[in-house]
């Protein structure tokens, strides 16, 4: 049996990068945008930029951080676009997206609690959402988060505290 030809080195790396980070980037975009369709589009843009970076630009030392940074900036751009503003203004209630029944999140947490948490998260300010995502989901340090979001470290702590307080209230109110 003929052995399939091996992929070129850089192409294999791109493939590995895509496979390794695709789910994480899509999730990040979904959390930042709230709309899965938009999130998928933005994630595609991020990976197109990754391809461009691999071909033309200097290779970043840490692809994970680079991809996260590009994804956050792409979500910012989407937030700033007139189309997004129009969508958000005219269909604000649509951002309260539906959750599937497959979300076996936590045994200790019900479907209603998950929905309540998601809705509470969508009601956080964009800054609080970003800080929460970077600190809690991505595991960045306060300093890294502050540098990336151009905030002071104290502001990062305050935003995280406020976000966590609201989310915890939502969690407690549905227990």
């Amino acid at each position: 049996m003929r052995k399939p030809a091996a992929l070129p080195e850089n192409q294999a790396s791109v493939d590995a990068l895509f496979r390794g980070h695709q789910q994480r980037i899509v999730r990040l975009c979904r959390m930042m945008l709230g709309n899965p369709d938009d999130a998928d589009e933005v994630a595609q843009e991020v990976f197109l930029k990754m391809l461009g970076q691999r071909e033309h630009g200097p290779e970043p030392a840490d692809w994970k951080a680079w991809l996260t940074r590009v994804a956050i900036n792409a979500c910012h751009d989407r937030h700033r676009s007139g189309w997004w503003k129009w969508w958000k203004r005219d269909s604000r209630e649509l951002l309260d997206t539906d959750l599937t029944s497959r979300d076996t999140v936590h045994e200790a947490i019900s479907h209603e609690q998950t929905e309540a948490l998601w809705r509470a998260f969508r009601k956080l300010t964009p800054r609080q959402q970003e800080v929460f995502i970077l600190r809690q989901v991505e595991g960045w340090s306060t300093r890294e988060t502050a540098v990336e979001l151009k905030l002071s470290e104290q502001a990062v702590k305050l935003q995280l505290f406020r976000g966590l307080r609201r989310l915890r209230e939502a969690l407690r109110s549905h227990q």
Partner: protein
Amino acid sequence: MKPCLEDSELLHLLAAEAADNVDHQDHLKECSRCAARYEEVARDADTITSALTQAADNLISRKRFAETYAYAWFGDGFRIAAIFAGATALGGAAAFALLLTLGRRPASNQLAQTAANRSASKVASIQRPAMTSRAIASNDAVAAGSRGALYNAEALTNDPLAGFAYGDSLSAADSNTNDDMLFCVPGDDGTICSSADQG
């Protein structure tokens, strides 16, 4: 020993780096109750994080978005269409009412009544063109008089060329408010207008 920490302080402690709030960290080491509460807060934060990440992974609202968006779109369309339809109907009704008000003419039976109220002899003695006279010659005098007067009056009023042909005479007839109907038709004797009162 310091008093126990409040929930907000525990949350602050969680949001901050471990090196921050050394006093609070020390208190947690000494107070098992606060340590347990801190563990609970941290557990809540983990639960929230894992719930939100998995919720984001499981978002499949594409269909619902499309449907809801379609409903919203059509709903807006219907609202706009209803507003336009209402505005058009109102405008049309207003225009129709205006036309009715401005363009209202006495109904034919009113003219006939007016003509019938006149004496038949006066109406019959009006000088009319020969053709008109012949047309009504077959009728009896009263009927011919009323019909002829009606016919001529309507013809003069409705004929768009009457303004050219009879010009000022017609307007004079229109402006006659003395209940004397003028019949402005060229007569054999060269007169243009003759009043029913003139005989």
